[in-house]
């Protein structure tokens, strides 16, 4: 019965919140109808608005009936289990194991890239953010993309082939950072970045994000 309950995704400002973008993409790719609540960052009401929806004080948050799930990866895992027909994880065991590994790495690593190349869909900052460690993060991401595309991507344009998976959702914010900071990519990585940014669900998110008012703290 729970699968029939209404779904609500609570997210932070779309222009800046990479954490929110990931479960939004996974949820959109299930094809399920859902409501969304967008909480603007860094306003006097932000803390109160978040607390109203999220007892943990964290965003993003998925409400499914009376169940609340927080943390972008936990939300995506829940969606994959609840809507298996969406193939949010690859069906083949080895591919699924690798998909979980690269997703976990994106979830927990690349701290230099995150810190110095923050997501900002509206901004264009060529040449900025190149501090020590960032180039290594970029190289590692490109190596992951190239390896997954070569080993598992033959059936389609995504990391693991024909289906958009949680791994693709997790790397989409990185693809936007590569545009914002004008990061030159190898051809395979550039083509994969273009695939991610041309997805209708991402395009819809980006259109809304670009209309949001700027938040000084993140500009």
């Amino acid at each position, binding site marked *: 019965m729970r699968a029939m309950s209404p779904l609500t995704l609570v997210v932070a400002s779309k222009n800046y919140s990479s954490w929110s973008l990931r479960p939004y993409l996974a949820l959109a790719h299930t094809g399920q109808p859902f409501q969304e609540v967008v909480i603007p960052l860094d306003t006097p009401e932000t803390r109160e608005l978040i607390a109203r929806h999220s007892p943990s004080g964290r965003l993003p948050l998925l409400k499914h009936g009376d169940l609340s799930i927080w943390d972008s990866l936990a939300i995506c895992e829940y969606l994959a289990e609840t809507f298996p027909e969406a193939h949010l994880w690859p069906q083949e065991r080895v591919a699924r194991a690798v998909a979980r590994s690269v997703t976990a790495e994106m979830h927990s690593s690349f701290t230099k890239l995150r810190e110095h190349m923050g997501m900002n869909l509206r901004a264009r900052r*060529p040449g900025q953010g190149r501090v020590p460690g960032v180039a290594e993060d970029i190289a590692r991401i490109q190596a992951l993309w190239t390896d997954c595309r070569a080993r598992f991507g033959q059936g389609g344009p995504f990391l693991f082939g024909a289906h958009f998976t949680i791994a693709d959702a997790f790397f989409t914010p990185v693809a936007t950072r590569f545009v914002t900071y004008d990061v030159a990519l190898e051809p395979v990585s*550039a083509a994969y970045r273009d695939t991610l940014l041309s997805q209708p669900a991402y395009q819809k998110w980006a259109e809304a994000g670009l209309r949001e008012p700027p938040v000084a703290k993140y500009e």
Partner: protein
Amino acid sequence: MVVEEPELGKLSAILFTGIEAAGRQSWRDEALQQVVRDEHAVLVRELLPRHGGREVKRLEDGFLLEFEGGLAAVDFGLELQQALKVHNDVVAVERRVVMRVGVHLGVVVHRDGDVFGEGVNLAARIEALARPGTLYVSETVARQVEGQLESPPVRLGRGEMKNIRLPVAVYRIDPPEHRRRQPWLSRVRSLLSRNTSAH
């Protein structure tokens, strides 16, 4: 002096056209070649605004064009192919042409009216790969137009991609079997027939 700021990182559909003489012939002389190139330009510039496209630049035997999305680019490419068929019907045999079209959707950088980036290179490589008279697109474009065309994109087989290394799969899009009646085709005829008797 106004210096245009580069516009960085915009997702655009990039389309290349390339023409050559029909029937594997070569042009009789440079004057004829120029006439045919100019006729191609007339068609491109006539149809482009209908699809919201932008002429980035004219090349020796074709054009580099930019569109907001893959569907607009593909619609334009198919309509241009159709217009070329009309062109070939009304001009002398020696002025008949075939055209290759290649489309990719990718992040491009705008500078001084031109476009740059890996996406532009990829679109050019796809156009070069296309057989004369066909329209080839990257998988990124094929996905975007899926379900919106009369003829679904057909993925190229391994044989067609032999010894060709591209970072994306390539699809062929065939013209619709049942041509729609296009009121602008009569205008194409009129535009082209002005020169028909001259060559």
